[in-house]
């Protein structure tokens, strides 16, 4: 254990004994960060759960005003980006430097499409006067006294999808950095940790959306009796 005479590389810093040990430490550190993110989003999911249990009918009507087909397609785009991300990590494991760059660019592309569609959806809310706090806020089929509860749904909708989109934007920044580094040939089969942990982050953001999609878009879609 005392032989710390090895030359320092990206894959093996002086404080670690083996490359595997360093890799495990990085992975564990990233997961600890993701756990804090789960609790961060968890608070919002708790808010959602409380208000949906209080106003289930208004939430169902508000949910029906979202376009679930666009939502489903966008979910598919995000899942596709997770696939290309894991393929970039796989290219890292195999030390295929060019493939890392190609798959990271594809991930960036799908992530960009997701954000574009999201921007379109948000714009629709402005057109339809479904912005909470707006003086002319109005949701059809909801009693005048319940309009406040409908605003609550859209507040939660914007807060949660907004926070999710913010994470996507950060992910785009990470991808851009990785693409530049990968293009310079920084990563190899023995060192691709940044690609790996950025992948964990990207998949985590994907998982958040996996829950946001049914919770926001798919409350009681069946025809009203």
């Amino acid at each position: 254990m005392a032989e710390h005479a090895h030359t320092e590389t990206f894959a093996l810093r002086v404080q670690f004994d083996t490359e595997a040990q360093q890799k495990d430490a990085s992975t564990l550190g990233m997961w600890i960060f993701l756990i804090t993110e789960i609790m961060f989003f968890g608070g919002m999911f708790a808010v959602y759960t409380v208000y949906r249990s209080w106003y289930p009918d208004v939430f169902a009507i508000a949910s029906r005003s979202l376009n679930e087909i666009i939502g489903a397609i966008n979910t598919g785009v995000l899942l596709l980006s997770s696939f290309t991300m894991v393929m970039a990590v796989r290219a890292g494991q195999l030390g295929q430097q060019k493939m890392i760059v190609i798959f990271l660019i594809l991930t960036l592309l799908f992530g960009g499409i997701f954000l574009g569609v999201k921007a379109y959806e948000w714009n629709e809310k402005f057109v339809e006067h479904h912005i909470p706090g707006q003086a002319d806020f109005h949701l059809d089929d909801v009693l005048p006294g319940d309009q406040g509860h409908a605003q609550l749904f859209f507040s939660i909708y914007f807060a949660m999808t907004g926070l999710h989109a913010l994470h996507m934007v950060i992910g785009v920044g990470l991808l851009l950095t990785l693409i530049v580094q990968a293009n310079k040939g920084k990563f190899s089969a023995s060192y691709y940790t940044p690609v790996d942990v950025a992948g964990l982050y990207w998949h985590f953001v994907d998982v958040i959306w996996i829950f946001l999609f049914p919770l926001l878009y798919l409350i009681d879609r069946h025809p009203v009796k």
Partner: protein
Amino acid sequence: MSDPHETTHIDSVGTYVKILLALLVATGVTTAVARVDLGAFSTVVALGIACGKMLLVALFFMHIRHSNKLTRLVVVGGLLWLAILLLLTMTDFATRGILGVPGK
């Protein structure tokens, strides 16, 4: 310095393609099943499918399948804390009105 017991597991492209297809199909199913009137059960189905998708992403895309025990423990521990957060919050909000006493 490489340890033969800790070599990286590399999944095949086919595995990842199958997982992607399963995730896309699950997305289609959850969208379609939302149009069926299942009453209160529809939320259970929606969350069940979402949990299934989360498991696929975590186990395969996030490599939990090949992770060491400490990492797995951290992940399960995190979900446990989330469960505590949601459960204890709801024990309050769901039971506030059931006793007709002041100060509820």
